């Protein structure tokens, strides 16, 4: 399946739209009483740019802010929504809810909502690959935030990956916020890459709101890892355009900073780029939007219709 660059970009744009639309819907569902979610509105280009640089054989770990990663990897919004709503048709049968969704069928193998948990698990997944489990040449990508980089486990994971030469791509979505704390209250400005480089790991710091730049950097990093089985590190500079979760009103956010980043919304940027290049006309856009809207509505209906888990699921499946 050889897609042209334009086709690829249009498909990626569509995925960005789908993610945005799903996340907005999840926020709306939360307003109506569904469980809270951590949306990655504003960060969609990170998810799509990196995940599109991976192959089916590769493995992914993510965290509390996973919807974008899951959808970028092809997750079905129906099952995603059902999971958020705690229903049996969710990816995890309603056990996870929004915070720890894994979908092994998509290669999203482990998700931890303990900040840094994903970093603790990722080297082991990559070690298994290196030791012959899974498909040959496969690598692991782990998504985490700038906040996670403050946890000690970040240091331990980097060191192990570097020392053991693990095929592991660290993807730090630096969205400037760690829940209710601005990251500059917790670290020096260029700290994240400095920390990774202290482990001798090759890093790149990329504009995370530029899908093409992210995709190019991720493609380079993935190729490099496959070539020498050593970890690489991507810092994706982006911004959490909404609150930390559901109904957070962002009262504590500097309006100017927010405004600055709103003007750099990755969706609008790609849309403009495609429009200016004559690759996206209003009709196509409208058709896309309509289709996505109907997928999202379908997902909501599906999730609401999906049954609650049976109470027997209270103690299953704890053990294998």
């Amino acid at each position, binding site marked *: 399946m050889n897609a042209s660059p334009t086709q690829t970009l249009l498909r990626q744009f569509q995925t960005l739209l789908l993610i945005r639309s799903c996340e907005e819907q999840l926020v709306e569902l939360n307003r109506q009483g569904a*469980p*809270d979610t951590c949306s990655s509105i504003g960060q969609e280009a990170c998810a799509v740019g990196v995940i599109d640089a991976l192959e089916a054989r590769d493995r992914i770990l993510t965290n509390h802010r996973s919807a974008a990663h899951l959808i970028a990897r092809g997750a079905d919004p129906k099952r995603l929504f059902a999971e958020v709503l*705690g*229903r049996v048709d969710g990816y995890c049968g*309603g*056990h*996870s*809810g*929004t*915070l*720890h969704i894994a979908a092994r069928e998509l290669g999203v193998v482990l998700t*931890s*909502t*303990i*900040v*840094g*948990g994903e970093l603790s698990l990722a080297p082991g997944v990559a070690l298994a690959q290196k030791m012959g489990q899974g498909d040959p040449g496969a690598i692991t990508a782990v998504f985490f935030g700038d*906040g*996670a980089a*403050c*946890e*000690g486990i970040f240091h331990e994971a980097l060191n192990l990956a570097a020392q053991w030469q693990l095929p592991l791509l660290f993807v730090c979505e630096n969205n400037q916020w*760690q*829940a*209710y*704390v601005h990251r500059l*209250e*917790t*670290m020096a400005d260029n700290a994240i890459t400095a920390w990774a480089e202290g482990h001798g790991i090759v890093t790149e710091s990329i504009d995370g709101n530029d899908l093409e730049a992210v995709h190019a950097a991720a493609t380079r990093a993935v190729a490099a890892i496959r070539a020498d089985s050593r970890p690489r590190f991507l810092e994706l500079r982006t911004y959490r355009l909404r609150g930390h979760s559901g109904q957070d009103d962002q009262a*504590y956010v500097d309006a100017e900073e927010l405004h600055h980043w709103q003007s750099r919304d990755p969706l609008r940027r790609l849309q403009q780029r495609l429009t200016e290049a004559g690759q996206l006309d209003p009709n196509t856009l409208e058709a896309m939007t309509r289709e996505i809207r109907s997928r999202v509505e379908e997902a909501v209906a599906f999730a609401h219709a999906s049954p*609650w*888990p049976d*109470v*027997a*699921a*209270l*103690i299953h499946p*704890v053990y294998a």
Partner: protein
Amino acid sequence: MTRMTTEQALTQALHEEMRRDARVLLLGEGAATKRPGLAREFGPARVRNTPLAEAIIAGTAVGAAASGLRPVIDLLFAPFLTYAMDALINSAGKLRYLSGGQCEFPLVALAMTGSGWCVGGQHNHNLEAMFVHAPGLQVLMPSTPADSKGLLKAAIRERNPVLFFIDLGLLHQEGEVADDPEEIVPIGVAALPRQGTDVTLVGYAKTVPVCLQAAAELEPHGVSAEVIDLRSLKPLDTACVLDSVARTGRLIVVHEASGLCGIAAELGALAASRAFGALRAPVVRITGPDAPAASSWALEQAAVPQAQAVVDAALGLMAEPLRRTPVVEDAWRAQA
């Protein structure tokens, strides 16, 4: 008395104690952002947002406590305590003893716990028993706004490390709270919100209202239930429990945490050891399942002990010929 939520009562306690004692400071991920009133009144040196790093937050509190400050740290959700275990268990709990008494650790670690928000097992895990099992700590877990305020104030004035668990299911419930800033609730003393003669129902945090409801429902059945709110899990008010069991001869312990090696196990064994002669029926534990907490609302609800299970158990104990095993043990089984 003023009517307020547990959340407000806790904030008020912090305000009053920080006013009272300049050595008290508050640290946590978003501590300043989330309590702007405190940040405004006491400034950035005493109300600090921290990096996202529970181990160093806790370690720093321990080091500061040994050096003349009285830190309160907000570790958010109880499962995040797993990152802070070395500082809390190996340092705060042990270094006074191991140093032959050279230091003390007046610190309070706050953590929210329990069901109510459908957040699933990595946010919802009642692990208070682990800290009861560990030496050198004190563990509090109140059920009312008044006790939340009074116990937090006591904890901040304590000379020893205190784990203060906040049941998030109760966070927004209202109650009358004392206004006098000198009124505290002593650590280590259980409350007796209802007296009775036939059966002792012991709970803490969100199972106290459950026990009270069960007691009310037992009344028409002619069963007089006494309700104990432990409040303080360590030190545990064993005298209060033993005294009650000596009078009622029947003990049902109810908590949301899982049963194995939990507080109900402790009290069950205590009764079987120290109140054996008084026991007229088997001890019953009604606890959460031995499983992670599911996020799904349906499962989260099912995991919490309900009044009906307590009522059934109590009726079973009353009806049962002396010394037979009870029918109901696990809340979720009773409800299944």
